[in-house]
């Protein structure tokens, strides 16, 4: 019997049509196995990511107001102005609070929920769905809901206080309260994502490890600290990076809940970009803020990925 060898999928020999040969120069430029299925994705990526990025950088070097037919090149003026802009500084600090605060809350809550749900035998699916549900709700809707809770007149919180004889409080007139509410709303909305990631991670840990540790007399906390946490490292990396990027880009909740106010004290960099572009009519300056936000997110992602992947544990 003759056996025809099956081509190894990892084989890197170029697929060449009969009668055609790749010369050495062509082999150098094109990958040997060209899969055209990624071309549509590449085109979309170029149109919706690369082009806007290049266009944004070039816009940031002008003083365009966003609609006029003329614009002038101003070099790095917009970037230099950022150094002296108090509102930008406030927005940057707020953005870091939104990003780091939301990430911390989501990691703690998400991991806790995942651990609990992993151990619950009955009703676990329903609980997972309930906790994940807010992820699918628009942040605008959720922000509006919380606005109705915290508003001064007819706000749910003030109405409850009134039931117990408490006075009305203008919650959203205080920047500190506004920032805290934004962090909490954002965290509660997206905690489901962390929970799902950690649940998947937990279910990937072989039970033999726990059984062996239990035989050795390890307590629950020791097992969690020495087995679960190290083996969840990839899940930590994914969840933290996703949550942090989401927090740093935060727009909708801020816009709906406080609009960046009172004054400009709760702006995130994203809401400031929108306001600077459309309301202040400073499209060039707004683009410069956008470029800075982009660099910040890339840098944070890069650093975090490097740090978290360094600690990865091999099974």
């Amino acid at each position, binding site marked *: 019997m003759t056996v025809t060898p099956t081509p190894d999928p990892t084989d890197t020999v170029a697929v060449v049509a009969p009668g055609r040969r790749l010369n050495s120069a062509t082999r150098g430029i094109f990958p040997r196995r060209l899969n055209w299925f990624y071309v549509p994705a590449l085109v979309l990526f170029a149109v919706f990511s690369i082009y806007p990025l290049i266009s944004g950088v070039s816009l940031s070097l002008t003083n365009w107001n966003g609609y006029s037919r*003329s614009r002038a090149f101003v070099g790095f003026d917009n970037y230099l102005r950022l150094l002296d802009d108090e*509102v930008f500084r406030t927005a940057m600090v707020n953005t870091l609070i939104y990003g780091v605060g939301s990430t911390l809350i989501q990691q703690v809550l998400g991991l806790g929920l995942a651990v609990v749900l992993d151990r619950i035998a009955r009703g676990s699916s329903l609980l997972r769905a309930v906790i994940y549900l807010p992820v699918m709700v628009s942040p605008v809707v959720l922000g509006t809901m919380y*606005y109705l809770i915290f508003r001064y007149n007819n706000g749910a919180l003030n109405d409850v206080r009134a039931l117990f004889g408490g006075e009305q409080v203008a919650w959203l007139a205080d920047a500190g309260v506004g920032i805290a509410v934004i962090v909490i709303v954002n965290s509660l909305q997206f905690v489901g994502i962390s929970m799902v990631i950690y649940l998947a991670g937990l279910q990937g840990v072989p039970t033999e490890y726990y059984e062996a540790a239990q035989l050795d007399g390890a307590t629950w906390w020791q097992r969690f600290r020495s087995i679960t946490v190290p083996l969840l490292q990839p899940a930590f990396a994914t969840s933290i990076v996703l949550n942090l990027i989401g927090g740093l880009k935060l727009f909708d909740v801020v816009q709906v809940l406080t609009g960046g*106010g*009172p004054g*400009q004290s709760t702006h995130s960099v994203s809401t400031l970009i929108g306001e600077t572009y459309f309301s202040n009519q400073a499209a060039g300056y707004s683009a410069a803020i956008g470029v800075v936000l982009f660099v910040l997110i890339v840098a944070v992602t890069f650093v975090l990925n490097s740090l978290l992947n360094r600690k990865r544990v091999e099974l």
Partner: protein
Amino acid sequence: MLAGFAGLAAAAVALSGCSGSGGPGDGDKVALEVQSAMAEGTPRFDALGKLAKAYEDDNPDVKVDVVAMGSDYEGDMKVRMGSGDLPDIWATHGWSLLRYSEFLEPLDDQPWADTLNPVLDSTMKNDDGEFFALPLTTDVAGILYNRTVLEDAGIDPASLGTIEAFDEALAKVKETGVVPISSSGKDDWFAGNVADWLGSGSYDGKESEQLADGEFVDSGFEAMFSKLEEWTKAGYFNPDFSSATSDDIATALGQGKTAFVMIQNSLALSAKQFVPDAQLGFMPVPAINGDPEYLIGGEGVALGAWRDGEHKEQALDFLAFLAETENIGAFASDDGNPAGLTGVDVDLGDLSDSYEQFFTPGEVRMVPYFDRAYLPNGMWNTLISTTGGIITGQTTVDSAVKQTEAEFGTLYGQQ
């Protein structure tokens, strides 16, 4: 198969031919897109819709689509200007000259141009005498008040011509347990208007011209922000400033839960919708710098035609139709403001008394909107944020002045 396709094609051609030779279907009409800056269901939007319908009846070959504004009219229009895709006609909301004129057809050669209300010359005409929109109404604004509240507090609005007298009135109102002034950081144009209303009385003529020429003068802003801070510390502003909506404020004004609101007179119409028996009026604004009191005037509801529009001729014809005395009078009555053209009778409704007392005699000076006349394009947002910051106690006077100066410098050089 081919025969089938040919048959279908022939039938389609025949049907389209029938449509063309009979009464004009919508497909044969010129469709004019009229982008209004009015919300659907408001009296002024319905009034414009009625006029559009009347025009269609007179001109069967034109279809006029009056479009209600979205949630961010200015943003929408900026995107359309940026992309060069504009409606045939659009509402200029006070900015026909300073923001939109680059894209609008000059209208000073139109048959109705000579009747433009002279009050609007300073805000709507450029140095060459050109103007770019038909003002259906003239915006006349002062400080709206609830007449019942002032009567109960023993205050005559005609006696509040100085800032000292106004301060005393605020204190008296507060003693009666009513909120003296209401504004909003949520629907933030309220906060911007507080600064716009007071700004004109914080600078004299010379200083205002310096601002217009790009030279920042801090004294007026300092005086205005200090006054706002003083009112904030005295507890004169509504405690729900950060969360109050336009409807909340209109209701509060109608119900007599607040005495004064610094906003356009159209809010009185909303207040009357919520509280039909409300007694409302408006009064001139007292100047912080001690100058005489003033009313604020400018372009009200105004429509301009796209200079590069495909249907520019029909657009100008529709504007001429709106400018006819009877039509513009009907619209202005529904809007509750004087018409933007002279020689037009308008029913000013509940605010008639105030118009007759302060506007018609022409004794109270009229000033343009502060930000439109003297500040660079884009400063409106700075007025909103700094005022909101002061009223909520989040910003100091110094910091607000510095922020205003920084924005002023940048935006003055913006193109």
